[in-house]
Structure formats: C-alpha cells, structure tokens
C-alpha cells in the first residue's frame, strides 16, 4: 500500500513545514495541559480546516448547542423511543447511531417544544399525540392492558409465594395434628434420653446442617 503512494514532493515538504509552524502556534495550550497533538498520517487542511476525506466520518453533524436545561432535555429524550427501529431512546440513538436521521429530527422537536414553554410531561404528551404511544420508551401505567403489563409478573409471583406459604403451613398443621393424635414413638435404642443430651444432639445436628 505504501509503495503506491507518491513520494514527498518539495511542495508537500514546504506545506508540511508551514503546517508544523501553524501547529506550534496552537501548541502552547496543549503543552500546558501536558499533552501533544497526534500526527496525521493523511494530511488534512490544517487544524481547523476540513478533513482529508469528510465522507468517511458519516453524516455531517451540527454543533450541539449548549443549553442551561441540557440535563432536563436529556432526561426527556431518554423517555422517548427513536422511531428508526434501533430499540434505543432518542438521546442514546442520536449520540450513538450516527447513521440515524430520525433521532436528530426528534431531538429538534423536543427542543422546539421546550422552547415553546412546555414542561417535560407536556413534551411527552405532545409526542404521544403526534406519534402514538409507541413514542414512549415504556407504556404509560394506565388502562387495563398496560397495568396488566406492569403488575402481572409481580402479582403472579406474590400470589404463588403466598399460596406456597399457606400450603406449607397448612400441611404442617395437619401433620402436627396427626402426630399429636398418635402416641410418641419409642426410642429405637430403648434408652432414656435426658434433656441435656437432646440439647447436645440438636447442636450437633445444627452443625451438620450448617
């Protein structure tokens, strides 16, 4: 691959010298941070110029505006689903999937609604009105179906757990009743067992069971 590349011409050499000098001008702030700029292997057009091949870095980006309510916007967008089929929320998609054209558009809509004075819930409602409930990352916990969605797993587990506990305690009571109805079985060895011995046995068994 390197063999096919043209050799460095005098013009390129001079350009490199000029760009090095330019780089030294922006050097001090970087040097102050204890850092050094990396060397481009395919030269661009200067530190603030265009890239050598802008087409390989994906869709051109717009500068992100610095807003006072950025955290709030982020929180709202994390509750809105991107419609590109990525299964991500709007914030995550627009800062992750850079081929997506939907999430930047949805972001702009969020900003416009916020700037028009809507609060977080108002923005979410506006999205639901426009795109339907699928615009939300999770269905609203209202209505029979949605509430079933949220509550069914927990309710089933709670019901099964309670049923299980009742079943065990009910059976325990039945067994206790049956045992009390019959006489205590004689010791298999026929030996008398003192309460102290029983206590020692219990502790020994507890040790084994541990």
């Amino acid at each position: 691959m390197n063999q096919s590349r043209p050799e460095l011409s005098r013009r390129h050499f001079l350009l490199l010298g000029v760009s090095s000098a330019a780089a030294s001008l922006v050097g001090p702030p970087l040097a102050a941070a204890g850092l050094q700029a990396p060397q481009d292997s395919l030269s661009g057009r200067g530190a603030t110029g265009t890239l050598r091949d802008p087409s390989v870095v994906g869709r051109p980006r717009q500068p992100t505006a610095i807003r006072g309510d950025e955290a709030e916007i982020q929180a709202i967008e994390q509750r809105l689903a991107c419609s590109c089929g990525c299964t991500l929320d709007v914030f995550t998609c627009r800062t992750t999937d850079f081929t997506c054209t939907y999430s930047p558009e949805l972001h702009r809509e969020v900003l416009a609604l916020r700037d028009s004075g809507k609060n977080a819930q108002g923005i979410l409602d506006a999205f639901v009105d426009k795109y339907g409930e699928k615009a939300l990352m999770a269905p609203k916990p209202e209505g029979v179906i949605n509430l079933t969605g949220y509550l069914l797993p927990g309710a089933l587990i709670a019901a099964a757990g309670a049923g299980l506990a009742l079943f065990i305690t009910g059976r325990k009571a039945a067994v206790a009743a049956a045992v009390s109805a019959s006489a205590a079985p004689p010791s298999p060895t026929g030996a008398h067992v003192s309460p102290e011995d029983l206590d020692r046995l219990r502790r020994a068994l507890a040790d084994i069971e541990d």
Partner: protein
Amino acid sequence: MTLLGQFALWAAFALGLWCVLLSFSGRWQGRPDLSASVVRSIYAISGCLLVASLALWKGLISHDFNMEYVASYTSRNLPNAYIFSAFWAGQKGSLLFWAVVLSLFASAAQLLTSRRFAYLMPYVAGVTAAVITFFVSVMIFAADPFERLAFTPADGRGLNPQLQNVGMIIHPPMLYLGYISLTIPFAFAMAALLSRRLDTGWIHAMRKWTLVSWLFLAIGITLGMWWAYVELGWGGYWAWDPVENASLLPWLTMTAFLHSVMIQEKRGMLKRWNFSLVIGTFLLSIFGTFITRSGVIASVHSFTQSNVGYFFLAFLVIVAVLSFTLLYTRWDLLEADVRLESVVSREAAFLFNNLLLVGIAFSVLWGTLFPILSELVRGTKITVGVPFFNRVNVPLGLLLLGLTGVGPLIAWRKASTANLQRQFIAPVISGLITLGALLAVGVRDFYATVALSLAGFVAGTIVQEFYRGVRARRRMHGESIPLAFGRLIGRNRRRYGGYIVHVAVLIYFVAFAGMAFKREQEATLKPGDSAEMTSPFGHRYRFTHMGISQYEALNRIVSAATVGVAKDGKSLGLMTSEKRQHVDSFKRPTFEPSTEVGIRSNLQEDVYIVYAGSVDGTEEAVYRFNINPLVWWVWFGGFVLALGGILTMWPGGGPTSSVPRRVQAGYEVTLVGSGKDGA
C-alpha cells in the same frame, strides 16, 4: 467443496433419521446390536457434520465468492481471525455451527457418561439425534450454507463492522455452546421419562452437563455485555433487547434447576418441577433461537429476517407438546418421597428462590412479548424499553439478591429460632453497616441503596460461611488458615464453588447498582477546546479535543479523534475514538461508517468517549462523554462466576483422607437398633 458439504449434510440427515427411528421405535430393546447402532450413528453424524464444517471453512479461507455465504460475510481484505469467525456470523453458517457442536456434545455425552447409566443412553442418542436432524433439515430445506451464486463476484461484501471485534470471535461460540449444550440435560430428562427410570440416576448422569450449559451461557452473556459495551457505543452493557433477553431466559430457569435439583437429591422432592424446569429451559433456548432468527421482534442483534423462523416455531410447538405430554403420562410416578415441613427451612428458601427465578424469567418473557400482545389486544403499537424492564424487574432482582443470602443460612427441614439468631446476626449487622455507610456518604438513590445494603448482607453470609468452615477445619485438623481455606473449598467443591458463584452474583449487583449514577454529556469541540465533567465519585475530568487523524488500515479508512484526558488536574494521557469506513479490496465502501469508542477503565469508573462525527467535515468534533461507575466489576464478576462454576464441576473432592467422614446421626441410630435386634 460445496458438493462435499451438501453430501455431508444429506448423509447426516439420513443418519439422524435412522438414529431417531431406531431409538424411539423401541426395537433396540433386547437387541444390543441395534442399541449399539443408535449410539454409533451419533458418532457418524458428528463425522458428517465435521466434514460439512470443514467444507464451509475451506470456502471461507479460499475466498470462494461463488458461494453465497462466503460472498455475503467475507471479503479479500478481511483479517484472518474474522474469516474464521465468519463461520457463525451469518444465519446459515451459525446453523451449521449449532448442528456440528451439538453432534460433538452428543458424542461426548455417549463417551463420557458412566456405564451405570447405559439404560438411558440409546434414548439420549435418539433425542439428541432428533434435535440435530431438525437443524440439518433447516439447512437442507431453507438455509443452505453451500448455496452457489449464478455468478462469481470479484470480492465479497465483507463482515458487518460491529462483528469485527474480538468479542464476536468468542462471545457467540460461548453463547451457542450454552444454548446447544442445554439439549443434553433435556435429552437425559426425556430418556428418564421414556425409560421410566425416574430415580435420581438421570440427575447424576447429567449433573456436569447442566453446569457446563449454565456456565457457558453465563460466560456468553457476560461476553455479550462486554461486546455491546465496547462495540455498540451507546454507553451501557445491557439494554433489555429481545435477543439479550432471549439469552437470559434459559439461564434463569437453569439457575432455578441447579438449586431445586439439590432438594431432589437431598430430600426426594420437586421431581415434577425439576422435569418441568429442564423441559422449559430447552424450550426457552429454542424460543431464543426463534426470536433471533425470525425477525418477529426488532433487535440490533438479530440475523436477517427469513423463513427459518417458522421452522423454529413449529419445532418449538412440537417439542413442547411431546415433552409435556410425556411428563404428564409419568406424573404419578413422580410423587415426592417426603413433604415440606416448614416455611422456615432451606427447602422452602430454595423453593422461593425458584419461584423468583422463574418469575423473573416470566417477567422478562412477558416484557419481550408485551408489544405483540398489546398490539393484538388493543391494536396499538407500544415500545417496551429499558424503563419498563427496570420498573418490573429491579424489585424482583433485589428480592432474589436477598434470598441469595438467606438460603444458605437456614437449616434443612426446619430452622429453630436459635439457629436463625445464630446464623443471621452477623450478616444483618453487615447489611446495616453498609446501609449506614451509604447514607453517611450521601447516597440517596432508593434502588441502589437497597441493592448495596443487601449486597452487604449477602457478603456477610458468605464470609460467615467461609469463616466457620475454616474455623472447623482448624479445630478438627489443626491446619493453618490458608491450608484450611484451600482444603475447605477443595473438599466441598460443590458447596463452596456455589458460594463463589454467589460472590459473583453479588459483584454483578453492586456493579449494576453503580450504573444508576452514570453521567453523560455531549460537547462540540474545536481542536484545543475542552469540556469538563464531574464523576459520581467526585473526580473532575477535563477532555481536550486534540484533532482528527485519518489513515488507511487493512480493510478500512480510519478517522481517529484524539482526546487528552486530565483527572483532577493531572493528565491521564490520550484517548482515541474512531469512525471506521470499511472498504473491500477495491476500496469500495461496504457498510455505513461505524464507531469505535475510547474506554479507560479503573476500579471506580470508566471514562467512555464516543466520537459522534465532525461538523461539516472539519476537525470540529461532536463527542459524547460518559462516566460509567463500577463497570470493571461486571467483567470481574464474570471472571469470579466462571471460577466458581469451574470449581463446582471440577471432578474429585471429598473428605480429608486421614479423617473418616462424619457419620450421619440417623444412620448411627439405625445401626445400633438393628444390632440390638439380633443382626
């Protein structure tokens, strides 16, 4: 080579049918020659599928672009490691991978299972052959990996950039190994039901296999999380994506089985439940395959939508009907030997643990399918994303974490109040100290606080168990602390390996709780500009955009954005995030540009940098900066889990040779009694 591959597939198909017919016809009974033929067929199927696999690999390595699969997933300039892994990168190749690995597992099961269980093996061969034959039939009739094109392209399309990651060389095979090996416990369960030998024999025969499946699934899931974290670039490792959920489901039910099977071994209870869990786990593995391959649910992990999904759906229904019908016909033979005596017993704790694990599995399945159900019932499309799953599953997960600590502390049969006091006091104090410390440092997130406090409690239980074990060994054998510790684990691998797995679960939960405090920020920076962020641990980070380098690599053009990172005023060095435009050998772009994130990890937090793109093609760059707390611990938790799992299934163990095993009290009494009766 394609002819050889297709011939091998057809041969495997024919042998599979032969094996299935013979083993289920029952004619092998009393005919050792036919029984041996069933088993030998499994080896022959393995041979055929190995030949088919080698034929596919030969096509991949020799760039035979006339093969549709080779042209779709490789290119001349694809690095060799990814040419190798392209075998399982696509739908068709992964089906062949599944079939060949299953045949090897089936052969290993025949070879490694003790002669004591010979009565099960022809049935095991039959069930495994049936599953293999199904996969081979899908390849033959719907997804032929050896399909030829009408023309030969000069170069292939190349591999999806997101799959060009070392994680994708290891993660899918691990996950597949987990999924695939689930067939073996299922086959043993079916063999026990078919042969009506329903004692604990089948459990002993397949115990190692259940652990192998569980371990591979766990490692595969963790590697998948790692791959998603480093490759997908969204800043997290778990998004409750349908395909992620599909891998979690069988792991949850298998974990439930690993606990409940202990009750069957110790007390002869839960026999029906254990069969149901094994069958359910296998069905969930097929369900996961159906979801991944059918396109029925949108996922970033899915294969291309195809009609293969219908095959899996049909297979799922048939297997469910047959296996549960078989279980139903043996229902009366599966009566428990004894009954549960108390809610406050280890059996009951394990039962509640099972309930929660299966409940969480149901909850995940419910959430995964809820969009479809909602659309069917209401006619309205909804999205069920991370907030839904977190709201439903986090409380259940915390309950499960609590039970992880409670289970090992309660005595079998029935725990006395004294036992409970003795066992719980130290762990509860440990949990309360953790809670106090969290509140003192200002942690206020409810779920994170509960998770970390419970983690303190569970850590207390585990430390207490190890402490008491070491103390007992020192008292009995006079061993030094390190020796007693080593031997404690070595002689009781199953129990203490299990505790190590509990440590891993604990680490996972702590790490997951950490993500509740993650920070994210977007910034557009010109070279020399900086952005600042404060991490949850209070560190001040400064990110300075240095510039963008563009260079050519083997199969891509790279645009690398370099960022100088300083923490609390001290330079940490440079980090790079890249845009990669993959190209074929003629320099033609093959896919959309992909992103490589920059990650710097330490025990506290990860700095995670995403180069989102350039403003109008200049070096002015748009970034997303994340500070993700405790992520390193997720990967460490995976390591500990693997360690515990391997320890649990490592052969050997048992009591120290110089000291005889303690005699169980009940047996001692019986012997004395029988001696007195004149024995």
